[in-house]
């Protein structure tokens, strides 16, 4: 099974090709078929006598039901399910215990970029110093973890999409894109070197763009797609510079080689690693929506909800965390870069959580919640708790996918309504959705003994015990931010739950009539994900001996660095319990406030607060005007203003040269024009006149009567035979 590693990304790719081709060949867009019908209409007598009007009826059928829907469903869901089975097969083939002891499996498919021999750099290749990049798939404990939840959550969300996207005309297109995304994500996860990681990284970016802009006829969706693409390019620019740096420094891009080299001889590389780490982190910021590049993720909610769940919550956006965890050797050697990661992560967590408090779109709240949770993960990586960060990535994938799919089910039930002010009282009407949403909300809020309680607690404990030699007070400040953010998270999530499911219905009569529970293809994934968001935390139980199984599983990725003392903190039990108690207390306060303000007080207190501090309220509801500032500074200022400045420079300075040249050219062109007019044109017109005379002669022969042609043919034949007989 482990030698079938190449098949894991291949199967979704085949799914993409089949779905995409079938969709391309069978779909009819509305505009096309109209044009076609019109064409028939103008040719009136053809239509009247044409015996084959079957063509038109075929068109009409295409509008009502989706062609090849069954095929798209089977191929779309099946390919990912097969990939999931193959992935688990490969993981268990190597064995969980072996992974925890540092086992890995690598298959090299082919030599991708041979770059020849370079004597100057090539320390870690030994003698020859050959530069090359291979297409290498590699599975170790970190990629096994990613692989497992990506394929599993991916399968569930594909299944969910069958119900959610069932009425869409672009059903086949959706599954083609989704399968392509799975392919790219699996390449990202399984890639054994930086460049293959980057290929997957760009691939998921492309699919993200395609799927955000899925409803491309709507302006906001197309714009959101473009925004995501452009913002991600900024991050990717940093990322690829970082990759160049790694290649220049190590002469290789293979993960095991470069990390082993850096761990074995840190002194040689440390001076450069801070820059490389910061560049890599810029890439992570773009993909994982960290401040200041987070702006695309909330807008990305313009895509269909399964996309938000799969790409913008569970898998793609965690790629940045995965990459940072993968490069933990580099980051551990660059403490200053670590401080940046931690501070950016903590700031993003707090910043996004405060925005989430005042959003009224059910998906926007979840989007800011995702940004905030990603901030948590980076905070963990920043304090060196890479395994804890990955632990939260995993639990987050389950509960946030559950929340998004639940939100999708709510939107489905409400007939497309996303404003939580127009919901309320849905608990009794869509019970399965309500129960799963409640469980996921309790989980993300950090209620004890659910998944996120363990993963968040692990992060907070790691932050509390972290040591920054440059800024000794920083960890405690970061801990305070993380704790406050946890409270905010509990508050806004329960605000969302209360406004959506409790109280009385606030929408229109038709909406109330329309509300219905979703089909089972949608509720089954919800139940499975809700179950996982309860139990998935138990792989990382603290305090108990051998309770932190996920930490031990991921331990091999933390290569020991020679000469670097890193000691695990074994805080006394009382401190651990105290931290947990603080987390529970803060979460309870958040939940209580949300309940008393929105369920009991029916929103009077928040309204009063908003009236009391209008400035603060305005800033928060408008997302701190970050988009507006970007618009002013980058779009207006840099792109347009810079363009105007360059235009001025161009008009005054640069134009002197062309103006002078223009005068010379003018003189020369007068001479040339004379030559052209009389000599060249004379020739051209002369040739044309000859042909004109000839065609007048020849066109007479083309009468269009077959009999004339036959007569000429017969005459010609007669002449030829006669000539032959005469002159032989």
């Amino acid at each position: 099974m482990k030698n079938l590693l190449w098949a894991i990304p291949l199967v979704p790719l085949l799914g993409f090709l089949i779905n995409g081709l079938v969709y391309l060949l069978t779909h009819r867009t509305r505009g096309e078929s109209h044009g076609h019908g019109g064409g028939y209409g103008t040719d009136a007598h053809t239509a009247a006598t044409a015996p084959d009007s079957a063509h038109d009826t075929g068109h009409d059928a295409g509008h009502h039901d989706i062609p090849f829907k069954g095929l798209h469903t089977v191929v779309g869901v099946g390919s990912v399910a097969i990939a999931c089975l193959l992935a688990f097969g490969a993981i268990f083939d190597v064995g969980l215990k072996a992974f925890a002891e540092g086992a890995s499996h690598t298959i090299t498919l082919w030599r991708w970029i041979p770059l020849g021999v370079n004597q100057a750099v090539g320390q870690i290749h030994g003698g020859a110093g050959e530069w090359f990049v291979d297409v290498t798939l590699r599975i170790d404990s970190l990629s096994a973890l990613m692989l497992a939840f990506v394929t599993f959550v991916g399968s569930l969300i594909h299944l969910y999409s069958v119900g959610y996207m069932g009425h869409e005309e672009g059903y086949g297109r959706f599954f083609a894109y989704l399968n392509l995304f799975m392919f790219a994500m699996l390449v990202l996860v399984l890639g054994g070197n930086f460049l293959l990681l980057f290929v997957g990284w760009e691939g998921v970016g492309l699919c993200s763009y395609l799927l955000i802009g899925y409803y491309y006829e709507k302006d906001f969706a197309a714009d959101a797609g473009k925004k995501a693409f452009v913002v991600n390019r900024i991050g990717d620019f940093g990322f690829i510079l970082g990759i160049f740096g790694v290649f220049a420094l190590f002469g290789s891009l293979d993960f095991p080689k470069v990390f082993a080299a850096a761990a074995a001889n840190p002194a040689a590389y440390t001076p450069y690693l801070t820059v490389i780490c910061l560049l890599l982190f810029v890439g992570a910021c773009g993909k994982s929506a960290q401040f200041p590049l987070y702006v695309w993720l909330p807008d990305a909610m313009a895509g269909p909800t399964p996309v938000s769940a799969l790409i913008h919550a569970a898998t793609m956006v965690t790629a940045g965390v995965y990459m940072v965890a993968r490069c933990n050797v580099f980051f551990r050697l660059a403490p200053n870069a670590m401080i940046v990661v931690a501070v950016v992560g903590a700031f993003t967590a707090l910043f996004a959580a405060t925005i989430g408090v005042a959003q009224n779109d059910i998906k926007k709240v979840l989007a800011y919640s995702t940004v905030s949770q990603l901030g948590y993960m980076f905070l963990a990586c920043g304090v060196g708790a890479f395994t804890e960060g990955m632990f939260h990535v995993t639990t987050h994938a389950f509960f946030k996918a559950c929340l998004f799919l639940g939100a999708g089910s709510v939107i489905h039930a409400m007939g497309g309504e996303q404003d939580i002010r127009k919901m309320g009282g849905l608990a009794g009407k869509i019970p399965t959705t309500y129960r799963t949403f409640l469980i996921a909300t309790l989980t993300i809020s950090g209620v004890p003994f659910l998944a996120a309680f363990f993963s968040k607690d692990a992060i907070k404990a790691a932050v509390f015990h972290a040591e920054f030699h440059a800024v000794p007070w920083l960890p405690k400040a970061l801990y305070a931010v993380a704790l406050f953010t946890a409270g905010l998270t509990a508050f806004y999530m329960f605000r969302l739950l209360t406004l959506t499911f409790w109280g009385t219905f606030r929408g229109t009569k038709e909406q109330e009539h329309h509300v219905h529970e979703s089909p089972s293809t949608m509720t089954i994934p919800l139940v499975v994900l809700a179950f996982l968001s309860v139990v998935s935390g138990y792989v990382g139980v603290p305090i108990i001996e051998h309770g932190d199984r996920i930490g031990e599983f991921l331990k091999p990725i933390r290569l020991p660095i020679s000469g670097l003392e890193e000691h695990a903190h074994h805080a006394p039990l009382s401190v651990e319990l105290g931290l947990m108690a603080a987390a529970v207390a803060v979460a309870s306060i958040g939940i209580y406030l949300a309940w008393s303000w929105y369920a009991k007080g029916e929103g009077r207190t928040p309204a009063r607060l908003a009236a009391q501090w209008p400035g603060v309220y305005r800033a928060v509801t408008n997302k701190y005007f970050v988009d507006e500032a970007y618009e002013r500074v980058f779009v207006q200022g840099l792109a347009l203003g810079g363009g105007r400045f360059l235009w001025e420079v161009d008009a005054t300075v640069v134009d002197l040269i062309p103006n002078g040249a223009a005068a010379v050219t003018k003189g020369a062109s007068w001479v040339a024009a004379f030559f052209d007019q009389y000599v060249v044109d004379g020739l051209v017109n002369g040739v044309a006149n000859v042909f004109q005379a000839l065609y007048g002669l020849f066109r007479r022969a083309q009468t269009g009567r077959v009999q004339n042609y036959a007569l000429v043919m017969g005459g010609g034949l007669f002449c030829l035979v006669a000539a032959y007989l005469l002159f032989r």
Partner: protein
Amino acid sequence: MTITINHYLVVSFLLFSIGFLGVLVRRNFLTILMSIELMLNAVNLNLIAFSRRLSDLTGQVFSIFVITIAAGEAAIGLALTISFFRQRKTLDVEEARTMQG
């Protein structure tokens, strides 16, 4: 009087000329088709005559081919005739001259 190959050739030539003339001068689509059949059969006769004279079966094989193809040609020609008639309500080939230069 024995029948030599010359007799066959003369008959074949006459048949062919009649057919060719028919193709050239008649206006009716169906008549032209029939004239073409006549020309094809003249060729068949010619082929078989030489086949017999040279004791070589190739000529007969060819004529069978020609008959087969002629059957197909007649079918297509008749189909064209029908669809032409449906469009123009006439069989006059003078009407089929919209492709002139």
